[in-house]
């Protein structure tokens, strides 16, 4: 129960952070904090809490989006499963490089899925989305990824007996 409350609080907090940064500085400097939280929740607590984070984050993102409801939920849930798959193959505890690799792979999967879904309902704009969405998102998200993970890890260690 405590883990669920922790995840719910941080989903809201990270969404507000994304909102604040986006409206202050602009689209190119917004890290994908909700995806980082999903990846962290999956690695730290397991797939169940990862799915909880994914669904909650997806619901909030879809509620604010004008596009079809369910896109972000599906994308985040898929990314949570992808995190489990990748963690079994490339993740090493206390290895920053493997964390960065997982986050990069999950961001790539997220972009591909979103592109495919957008392509199903509109036009496929892979080149534009790669240059104007994926590259800025990857750069800024990877830059703060380790800091966010350490922050969340410290919160978890203080709140829960591991």
């Amino acid at each position, binding site marked *: 129960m405590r883990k669920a409350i922790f995840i719910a609080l941080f989903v*809201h907090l990270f*969404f*507000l952070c*994304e*909102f*604040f*940064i*986006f*409206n*202050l500085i*602009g*689209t190119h400097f*917004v890290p994908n904090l909700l995806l980082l939280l999903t990846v962290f929740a999956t690695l730290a607590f397991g*797939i169940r809490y990862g*799915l909880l984070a994914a*669904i909650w984050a*997806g*619901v*909030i*993102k*879809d*509620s*604010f*989006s*004008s*596009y*079809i*409801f*369910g*896109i972000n*939920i*599906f994308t985040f*849930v*898929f990314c949570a*499963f992808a995190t489990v798959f990748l963690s079994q193959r490339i993740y090493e505890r206390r290895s920053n490089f493997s964390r960065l690799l997982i986050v990069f792979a999950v961001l790539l999967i997220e972009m591909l899925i*979103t592109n495919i*879904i*957008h392509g199903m309902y*509109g*036009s496929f*704009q892979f080149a*534009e*989305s790669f240059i*104007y*969405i994926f590259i*800025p*998102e990857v750069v800024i998200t990877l830059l703060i990824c380790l800091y966010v993970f350490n922050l969340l890890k410290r919160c978890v260690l203080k709140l829960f007996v591991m």
Partner: protein
Amino acid sequence: MLSNNSKKIIYLLILIVPFLVFFSNQKLVSSFKFKTVDALRGPLSFISSPLKELRKLLYYHRTFDEYIFLRKRVNELEARLVGQEEVLIENARLVELLEFKRKLIYSSVAASVIGRNPSRWNSTMIVDKGTDDGIKQGMSVVNALGVVGKISEVGEKTSKVLLVTDPQFSVAAQVQRPRESVLVTGTLKGLCRLRFVNENADIREGDKVVTSKLSTTFPESLIIGEVVKVIRNKKSGTLDCWVKPAVSLSQLEEVLIIIN
């Protein structure tokens, strides 16, 4: 404890159900979406106020430059207005003679911007007016500088505005100088694009793009933006035109929603 097979089935269902939600009636989830938006409206409004003040401090120079430009423009327009009244009276008389009815005044509602949706795939924003204020889906949203977007979804107290740079946005338009009819759509670049452009069209950088009479959503002659790039592909015979919106979408604080 559940068996491995049961767990796999549950995980598969969790993956499939959101995918099936795509094909559901989106109107059914609309009220749920706005309940989520309204639940976060308090914290968003709470951080919007210092955000606006912070933006004013950070972008002071941009605001001051804009003020100088607008001041100069107002003076030019005031000078042009002298003598225009006679032209307007004559135009109204001629239009009446030809039995066309035109609305010269539009009723509108002012709305404050709560904030933009922090998504790279969509360009939408939330405003603080909804069905309680007479807002309906599809209404056009403008400000003094030009077209902002249109209402995509409406809740009781808030609405979502699809901005002019959103890939889903489109409006019938006209390039003012050559009088070319085009369709303006948004892109992921943050600019707009002209579609269905005649390959021999005489469109140049600096041409103004305005809404046309063919638009069912927007009143005609509202400024959408300015052509910033024209790429002529001689091999395929196509013309690629990029338009910068007239409205600075990142600095919007108030907009007008046209009721009728």
